[in-house]
């Protein structure tokens, strides 16, 4: 079980992350509305303040930078991971040797002739 201090620290961090990631709303609150809210908002407990202080300076700024880097990494990862499934392809160039090309030709001929025969039989 997490101790209370750790839990509070995590909650403070969650709140900061939520604030950093929150998209601006269509109607931004006015200064007066913010002032009214600030008057009634509960203040941080001494433990909360300590937890916040322990996170160091410019927490929101650092969170935003980390988020941007994570997005960058995720794109990079996507590029690097692209051929993962393609591990089954031993021949990514797609060029085939003469044996394979000859087998294609034999199979094509066989199948197309069979279809032709069947169609002409069906017509009769």
């Amino acid at each position, binding site marked *: 079980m997490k101790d209370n201090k750790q839990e509070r620290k995590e909650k403070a961090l969650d709140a900061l992350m939520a604030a950093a990631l929150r998209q601006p709303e269509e109607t931004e609150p006015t200064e007066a509305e913010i002032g009214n809210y600030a008057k009634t908002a509960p203040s941080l407990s001494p433990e909360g303040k300590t937890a916040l202080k322990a996170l160091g300076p410019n927490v929101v700024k650092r969170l935003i930078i980390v988020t941007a880097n*994570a997005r960058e*990494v*995720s794109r*990079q*990862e996507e590029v*690097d*991971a*692209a*051929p*993962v*499934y*393609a*591990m*089954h*392809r*031993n*021949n*990514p*160039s*797609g*060029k*085939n*040797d003469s*044996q*394979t090309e000859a*087998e*294609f030709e*034999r*199979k*094509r001929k066989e*199948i*197309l002739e069979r*279809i*032709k025969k069947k169609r002409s039989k069906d017509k009769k």
Partner: protein
Amino acid sequence: MTPSEIERVANEVLAGYDCSVPPVDILAIAKAEGIELAPGTYAQDFSGRIEYHREAGKFILFYPEVEEARYPAQVRFSVAHELGHYFLDHHRELLIRGQAHNSANDFICDNVLEREADEFAAALLIPSRALEQKLAKRSFMTLREILSMSEQWFSSATSTSIRYAKFTPEACVVVLSEAHQTLYSVSSDEAGVIGLRFLPKGRAVPQRAVTAKAGSSPGLDIVFEGSINSAEWFPNRQREIELWEESFPLGGTGRVLTLLSLAPSK
């Protein structure tokens, strides 16, 4: 197309043929679609090809005989991949226009299309519904269990592991390595959240990792396992945690499949 759109198409195909319980009979699906099957004796590096023949109004699917293949699961994946080119609308349009037939290399080298077909193949062979049902009973699986599932479902160990990482709510990372260097890695969402996300291609496998042992034992049919500090694999992660590492040499390919997950709490 997004992976979820591709997943939807694969699920529709599975539902349409009432075969959402693996192993999925992909050749039966192809046959039912009227695709002409052309199993044959092709070169060892050949995996699969689909062509459209206008004069006959038919698709022909070339693939190595599954029974004769060295790695049957790979052939199944290739066949499912070619079916992706058939079932995904914009792929089929290209095939019907003759692009696959007349300029095969261009088509094959188009990474976006290839990747989409790969996603489709994985979704077809390892159906999301079946995987979700497995994970509903227990949210995590060991590498041994994943390998056993891939055998039961006739799917490749790599693609089954990747699908597992995509669906499990647990933190885990699937790593593929070769010659003691990472090739690719896929993290579960939860692993990404806790900073076990990015392993760059070409990073040296940690010497203390069981993956290194597995890499030196190609062809050995056993799962190596042990605990390892996260700093060994993820040196940039701020906090160090204990991970549980399981590694399996992929036949004689020289590649190693690794599953990193959180070490069980003591």
